[in-house]
């Protein structure tokens, strides 16, 4: 088990290198001179040249990439913002916890409500609750994060004045972004829980449990849910990854100072070091989540555990 985890952790190194290389190539092709964008059109030719020299922009592509990797590995330094002049590390240190709170809160909400709804739907199949929940799930999957976000602001901030429409500092400010970001995942988790539970409920060992007079709640939670859990966890893992992507949009709608917003703003202002840092952090978080899901499988399913011994 430990060896399996270590081996998976080691694959992070080539993936990180690959992601930085991909990103470097994309930024290298990006039109627009960062020197001109940062210093403005009135800057003299000397100042532009000095800026490019200072930030190594006059160097060939591979030298720039090599230097970036060297600095990152040896000095743990991923550069400095062209615009705010703060280190990229401190920019991300400010923004990353925000994004993490946003997406963890959203996946927690989606998982909790999704599994509860899914179980009720499966136990009471074709009931009114089941039908209504499935209609909402269909709507939820088709609604873009940014649209739902604006609608929530319209209803709860503009008309009802219950909740603030932007920011992420107080608990009240967090409710709308969490709901907006989690709606797609909530719908998918509900559907997955429902279909997975329905499959298990029909199996023989559930009938056996009923036949021996086991209590219904114990049957549902202990016998059915535990066996239905694997596909649900897979989908939660995938959804957590999607949430990280979706958080970029939620952050934009609710003016939340997270990594996604940082990345988008930096892309627009050609602040390359910040783009690199932000995207690499998001990619790393994404890969780590996938790794965690893999480990969780083996923990939940003893059949898989023996395979990796």
């Amino acid at each position, binding site marked *: 088990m430990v060896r399996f985890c270590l081996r998976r952790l080691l694959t992070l190194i080539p993936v990180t290198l690959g992601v930085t290389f*991909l990103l470097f190539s994309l930024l290298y*092709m990006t039109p627009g001179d960062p020197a001109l964008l940062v210093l403005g059109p009135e800057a003299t030719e000397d100042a532009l040249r000095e800026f490019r020299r200072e930030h190594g922009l006059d160097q060939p592509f591979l030298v720039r990439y090599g230097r970036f990797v060297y600095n990152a590995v040896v000095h743990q330094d991923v550069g400095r913002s062209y615009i705010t002049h703060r280190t990229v590390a401190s920019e991300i240190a400010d923004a990353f916890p925000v994004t993490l709170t946003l997406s963890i809160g959203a996946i927690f909400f989606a998982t909790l409500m999704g599994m509860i709804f899914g179980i009720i739907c499966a136990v009471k199949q074709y009931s009114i609750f089941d039908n209504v929940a499935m209609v909402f799930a269909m709507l939820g999957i*088709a609604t873009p994060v940014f649209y739902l976000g604006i609608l929530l602001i319209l209803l709860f901030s*503009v008309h009802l004045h219950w909740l603030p429409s932007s920011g992420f500092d107080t608990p009240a400010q967090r409710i709308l972004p969490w709901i907006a970001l989690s709606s797609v995942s909530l719908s998918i988790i509900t559907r997955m829980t429902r279909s997975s539970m329905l499959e298990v409920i029909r199996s023989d060992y559930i009938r056996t449990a009923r036949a021996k007079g086991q209590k219904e709640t114990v049957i549902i939670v202990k016998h059915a849910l535990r066996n239905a859990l694997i596909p649900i966890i897979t989908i939660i893992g995938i959804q957590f990854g999607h949430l990280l*992507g979706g958080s970029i*949009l939620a952050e934009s709608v609710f003016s939340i100072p997270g990594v996604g917003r940082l990345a988008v703003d930096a892309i627009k202002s050609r602040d390359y070091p910040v783009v690199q840092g932000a995207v690499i952090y998001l*990619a790393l978080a994404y890969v780590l989540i996938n790794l965690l899901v893999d480990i969780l499988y083996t923990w939940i399913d003893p059949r898989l555990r023996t395979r990796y011994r």
Partner: protein
Amino acid sequence: MIFPRKNSNLYLTLLRLKRNRLAVFGLAVLVMLLLTAIFAPRIAPYHYATQNLADAFEAPSGKHYLGTDDFGRDIFSRIIYGARVSTQVGLFAVSLAMISGGLLGASAAYYGGRIDGIIMRCMDIFMSIPQILLAIAIAASLGPGLLNLTIAVGVAALPDFARVVRGSVLTISGQEYIEAARCMGASDAWIILRHILPNCSAPIIVQSTLRVGQAILATAALSFLGLGVQPPYPEWGGMLAASRGYVRDYAYMTIAPGLAIMITIMALNFLGDGLRDAMDPKLKR
């Protein structure tokens, strides 16, 4: 219209699809959307860029079915023209992803060994960036415009296709009937064209249908962030972004383009789910 032979696979699939009411509804909506996009200039009551500042911020009425925006442009007409962007980017981006991703996945599965390793590790790297973020980065590096938007959305979706195609080609080439065909002396080309491709077309078609929805969502998201189609050309996501500032007083400006996105995605999901059930009778009932 195609009239497939009775008892052919296609005929049976269409028959099963016809019984699924939601899928038929989805297909009908999509056909309507496509017709709207093609005949936009004939259907739209106004041109998408016609400004009439005297009529700005008009609520929905008989003259302007969905009202007018901050420049006095007819929102109904802009949504009709917006269907062009969504359908074009959706279809072409997914075709791009399907063809290039499919070729990569198929060659990875077919050649195996080192080539498989190299291709799939590259795909892993693409997949370790959240898709929307990858699309944002590509869109930014290519610059704005419809073609660049298509490439960005398509490339971001490419690794998924490579994986799906590789997976199904691998499963099918291990099946006994492939071995049987080989024993009977069938050539590689015959096996691939006659046996492998037809049998892995179902997951690819289902994946593509669902993917078009994702592509349309990504297009809207990119335009919403200001990295997609540039104004004044209407795009649903861009219209949403532009209306944000007026949501307090003129909510109809926001609601209409969002509904357009939702209906399109829902129709594609209905059709995709219906196709999945129709193409694989073993699955579900």
